[in-house]
């Protein structure tokens, strides 16, 4: 575990931002306002060496040193910067976490050997060398320590004699012994109490009996000591859940040519696919990260409708995205991570390969990644007798793997002019005998999105039937009002719609459809509708309805028949 400490993060950021405007020797403070007083929040190296420390008032600071520069403290910006820095550290290990306000954890288990250089530095030292060197390049003062436990690394990074330290296995006890007890991450009161007892160094604590310590200071001291020495495990949560299936590729020189990036991607995809294949997994989402030379990270991700590990397919999915990536001044490291994994039997693995080019998934993935997966839809019947609610367009890939939900395409509540007996306020609820083997879901519950293409035959095919020609081929998204309606008796005879007069040859209806009273639906605020299938003189067939009863009738076109 590496603990990285950035003691001057706040002031270093200011100096970096104001590049050169401040003299190196001029003390710099950040100032925060508390209860009407200005307090020093952070000091830079020059200020610290002049005796200034965080927590004193600005007036005191000015009294001590006259020539100081002050800036308002920006704790939010500092935290964000630390977060970005933790992300940047992902170039060394997938497992990083920001720590409090000025530190970063890096778990480099299994990663350090990658950094072993030709100059015979061991991997760990080379990694720290590289890390601190680069941070210095960014203008950030930093210290880092590598130790077996987070506690020891933390202590050495902050209180060690040197700005970098690698504690070999078994060397924890002796390395920690000369450090002050504050290095055990103890509260100020505890540290004060210990020093009054003459326990100033960590080493002083080794021979002390636990029980009196615990009686006096609670369990804190013993716990922290045990954590530092590795007697108690200390979990540290990583910044982001790092995918276990992650491969990376670093370059000795930054690359910028899109073709190089594409080639790097291909290699990574091959390696990732191999690892997934070894474990019988496929992924539904893959993230490609570019660690740029300027320290920023670019990410792009593609999704797949169904788990895949076909390298050719994955490369194709990314092909569209590579243009969006900006290599900036060059890319030092590429990383590819599989995010959503699912079991994938070996037989399924070569979908989209040469053998089975009739599988729809690769195509859906490509379309989804370009258009957005919500735009690749299938039509799902919904149990409602309202025509505009009776179907839903659902993203094909939103919930893959689910089997089609047992629902049936509800018939309309046909009540041809029989107002007396069209009485049931429940509308179609009464008339839904579900056929055997079909379940029922609560009204209003959305049916699970189905993957229609996987179930080509079988019960799904039946669910849309039962309406015959009484439903239009196209339903207008919003019913369009028509003007100048003439009515013969109750039957519409002519109207004006979309800049044309339609004289009707025929009208079949009405079919009464009642709103679902238990649901607020603006569209159905007008009450029951009487639908007519009408045909004008040109043979054009429309779905017309009237709402508002015979007195205040308003007419709308709701659909078009083929």
């Amino acid at each position: 575990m590496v603990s990285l400490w950035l003691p001057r993060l706040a002031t270093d950021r200011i100096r970096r931002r104001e590049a050169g405007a401040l003299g190196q020797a001029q003390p710099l403070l950040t100032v925060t306002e508390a209860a009407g007083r200005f307090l020093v929040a952070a000091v830079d190296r020059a200020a610290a060496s002049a005796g200034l420390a965080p927590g004193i008032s600005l007036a005191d600071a000015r009294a001590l040193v006259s020539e100081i520069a002050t800036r308002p403290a920006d704790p939010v910006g500092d935290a964000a910067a630390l977060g970005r820095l933790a992300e940047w550290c992902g170039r060394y290990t997938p497992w990083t976490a920001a720590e409090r306000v000025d530190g970063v954890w890096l778990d480099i288990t299994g990663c350090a050997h990658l950094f072993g250089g030709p100059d015979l530095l061991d991997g760990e030292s080379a990694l720290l060398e590289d890390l601190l060197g680069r941070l210095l390049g960014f203008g950030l003062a930093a210290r880092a320590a590598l130790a077996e436990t987070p506690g020891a690394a933390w202590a050495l990074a902050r209180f060690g004699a040197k700005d970098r330290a690698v504690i070999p296995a078994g060397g924890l006890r002796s390395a920690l012994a000369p450090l002050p007890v504050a290095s055990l991450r103890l509260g100020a009161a505890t540290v004060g109490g210990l020093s009054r007892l003459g326990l100033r160094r960590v080493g002083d604590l080794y021979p002390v009996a636990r029980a009196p310590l615990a009686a006096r200071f609670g369990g804190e001291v013993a716990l922290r000591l045990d954590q530092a020495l590795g007697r108690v495990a200390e979990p540290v949560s990583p910044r982001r859940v790092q995918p276990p299936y992650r491969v990376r590729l670093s370059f000795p020189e930054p690359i910028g040519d899109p073709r190089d990036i594409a080639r790097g991607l291909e290699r990574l995809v091959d390696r990732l696919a191999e690892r997934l294949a070894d474990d019988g997994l496929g992924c539904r989402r893959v993230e490609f990260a570019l660690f740029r030379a300027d320290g920023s990270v670019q990410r792009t991700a593609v999704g797949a409708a169904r788990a895949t590990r076909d390298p050719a397919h994955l490369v194709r999915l990314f092909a569209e995205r590579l243009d969006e990536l900006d290599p900036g001044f060059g890319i030092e490291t590429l990383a590819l991570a599989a995010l959503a994994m699912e079991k994938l039997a070996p037989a399924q693995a070569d979908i989209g390969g040469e053998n089975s080019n009739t599988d729809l998934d690769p195509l859906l993935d490509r379309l989804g990644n370009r258009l957005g997966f919500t735009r690749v839809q299938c039509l799902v019947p919904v149990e409602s007798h309202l025509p505009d609610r009776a179907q839903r367009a659902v993203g094909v890939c939103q919930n893959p793997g689910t089997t089609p939900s047992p629902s049936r395409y509800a018939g309309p509540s046909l009540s041809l002019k029989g107002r007396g007996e069209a009485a049931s306020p429940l509308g179609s609820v009464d008339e839904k005998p579900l056929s055997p083997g079909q379940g029922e879901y609560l009204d209003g519950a959305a049916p699970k999105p189905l993957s229609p293409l996987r179930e080509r035959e079988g019960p799904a095919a039946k669910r849309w039937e039962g309406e015959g020609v009484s439903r239009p081929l196209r339903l207008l998204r919003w019913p369009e009002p028509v003007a100048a309606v003439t009515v013969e008796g109750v039957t519409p005879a002519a109207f004006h719609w979309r800049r044309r007069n339609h004289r009707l040859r025929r009208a079949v209806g009405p079919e009464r459809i009642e709103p679902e009273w238990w649901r607020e639906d603006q569209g159905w605020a007008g009450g029951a509708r009487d639908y007519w299938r009408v045909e004008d003189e040109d043979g054009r067939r429309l779905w017309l309805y009237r709402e508002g009863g015979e007195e205040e009738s308003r007419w709308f076109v709701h659909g078009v028949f083929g």
Partner: protein
Amino acid sequence: MSGTGAAKTEAAGTRVAKTKTAKAGVLAELRRRIAAIERGSTGGGEIGGAVLALGLAAIDHALPRGGLGLGAVHEAIGSAATGFAAVLAGRARGPVLWCVGEAAADGLYGAGLAAFGCDPARLVVLRCRNAKEMLWAMEEGLRAAAPAMVVAEPASPVGLGASRRLQLAAEAGRTLGLVLRETKGSQTRLAPSAVASRWRVDTAPNGCWRIELLRCRGLSAAGHNWPGKHWMVEWHDATGGLALVAPPGDRPDQAA
């Protein structure tokens, strides 16, 4: 078939030497035989065969290969073009990709499609933001070979270049493409296009459709009632297919 042969022979003969002419003649003859075999074996409508038949002998037999050729892009215009597309989609064996414009005021309605034998469960509806995206999606779909049929409803006519691209993609994927344009009025000027066949399908009184074959590659004017070849058809729920309509006087007026 003889039309195909004649056209090929003519085209080849005007350009190259006699040996080539003979070669083209042989090729045409072979193509004719293959087409005949395929029509016989698949019975039409079967994806994997060379054609998608409408299932109406009168029309299918008028087409050079006995149906709408797979691996080709066709175009349907007119007020009932959607219904025509639904019938074809219903006969295609396999998933159907249907590209619609996002801004369109109306959406495909599953229950209505089902009435024409097109099971909505086989449909993937793509909501494209613009014409460019739609053409891209159609081309991808055609080339991928996974869908049995790809339908697109572009807001404006597909240009010559774009239709060539689509045609090439359809050939690569052996997929049937259908460009759907519900044009209003009958005077629409048709843009030049590389589609294999072009149909006008209009609603006609009494729930009928008037299907007109405006153009068809491989079909010469000679030997056919051409141009202006048209049929009056209607959908029969009972048989689940199209049927020719008897001349007006002979049939009782029936409900749509």
